[in-house]
């Protein structure tokens, strides 16, 4: 297991935000966590990233405990809903940021960054500043910036929620491709049922600070409580109706 989280609990004042949360993510796998806003997803991700300290529980990376390690030494990257780019740096420099911190030799850095730009189809925009980009381009830059340092785990917090449906679909596709290619384990948080099913190798459901995980996608879909079945039935009945309608029209 790349990431193992055990018995995480967190309160903000009187309010219990997380309670006994446990999960694990295997090599090259993506765990989708489905939950409404306010269910504690963001807090969980921030605890894994080291931005918030948990009240109880442990976080392990490749078996080693990192619960008290500072953020910058964890090699875990958290991606925000908004593609938070450094406004003073170009697209190229934003992507190269992590490599610069690691003092990579210049030609190596250029090479890697250029390759990443190609992957992201951002070559034409390398010299632009964030405020000159579209929403999708920004989010791709943020991805590139995170993936290029080959983090052990990537944490994604509703990364596509502010994009239009078309861009969203292509980004989902791009992400799967990149995760595969760079072999990154990730935790993907969303409130969109379809996206959760689409992105996750396994799925978890979070409600009121408690996480339920499912071994496989099918198990989740079959479970009556989470509405996956309803959704599928809705879409298939719609298709059914449409077919019937077409049928009727031809007749």
């Amino acid at each position, binding site marked *: 297991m790349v990431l193992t989280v055990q018995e995480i609990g967190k309160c903000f004042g009187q309010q219990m935000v997380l309670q006994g949360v446990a999960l694990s993510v295997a090599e090259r796998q993506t765990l989708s966590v489905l939950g409404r806003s306010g269910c504690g997803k963001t807090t969980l991700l921030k605890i894994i990233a080291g931005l918030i300290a948990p009240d109880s529980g442990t976080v392990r990376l490749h078996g080693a405990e990192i619960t008290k390690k500072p953020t910058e030494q964890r090699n875990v990257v958290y991606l925000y809903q908004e593609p938070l780019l*450094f406004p003073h740096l170009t697209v190229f420099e934003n992507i190269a940021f992590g490599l610069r911190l690691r003092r990579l030799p210049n030609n190596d850095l250029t090479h890697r960054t250029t390759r990443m730009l190609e992957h992201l189809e951002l070559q034409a925009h390398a010299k632009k500043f964030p405020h000159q980009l579209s929403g999708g381009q920004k989010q791709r830059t943020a991805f590139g910036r995170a993936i290029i340092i080959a983090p052990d785990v990537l944490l994604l917090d509703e990364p596509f929620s502010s994009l239009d449906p078309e861009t969203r679909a292509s980004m989902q596709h791009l992400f799967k491709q990149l995760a595969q290619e760079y072999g990154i384990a990730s935790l993907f948080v969303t409130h969109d049922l379809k996206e959760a099913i689409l992105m996750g190798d396994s799925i978890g459901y979070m409600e009121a600070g408690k996480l339920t995980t499912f071994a496989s996608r099918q198990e989740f879909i079959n479970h009556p409580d989470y509405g996956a079945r309803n959704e599928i039935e809705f879409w298939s009945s719609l298709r059914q109706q449409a077919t019937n309608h077409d049928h009727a029209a031809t007749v």
Partner: protein
Amino acid sequence: MSNQHRIFQNALVAAVGMLFAAPMLYLLLLSFAEGWTFPHLFPPRVSAGLWETMWGREQGLVGGLLLSILLSVVVAVGSTSVGFLAARYVSYHRWRRGLLFLSYIPFVMSPVVLGACIHVVFIRLGLVGTVAGVVIAQLMFALGFAVIFFVSFWNAERKSLEEAARMLGATTPQTYSRVLLPISRQPLLLCFLQTFLFSWFQYGLTLIIGGGKITTLPVLVYLYTGEANIYYAAGASILLMLPPLVMLWGNRAMAVRFGR
């Protein structure tokens, strides 16, 4: 927009502009005037004599100018850097509101009145009549401003950018040098400018804490304005106004260049 309306607007702009520029123009004229008394609406005689003698006779003026520049730069650098950090602490602190309220007290209160109260504290610390004392006294007020100024700067977005840098592996010094300072260039400059001006304009506080020993340009100018020779006062006033004018105009140009 009708033609008539446009003419009216242009006339208004010209009139208001004249009014804004009038003090500077008047002082300039006065510094070149001679015998400009009632009922002369315009100077009866003009001469550059004042500007020639001012530097020669009153070496104090050059000294005052240099001292003022030194003092204002130190106050501006000190309050901007300390304010930048202190505001970060305040912004992310549990008692953010209470701490911020404290900063408002030195920010708006009369430096002269508070100056009278802190006079004895400064004497005990041996700071009265020293440049260090005046710097610290002015810092006290400039810091209030700097903290307030930067508290709104340290918002959620700044915090997230910083977190993003850390997750990519940046250490604390790297976070500052590669992210926080570069993205803060504009506000840092603005705060520097404001605190510089505050210090540059300060008269009463410098007088109390300086004990008359620290003769900055405003102190000298006040001496002249209270004196019978108004032409001297005009000349010294212009010297006092030039640096702030250059800075304010420079800042405007900068603001335009950086697209606000």
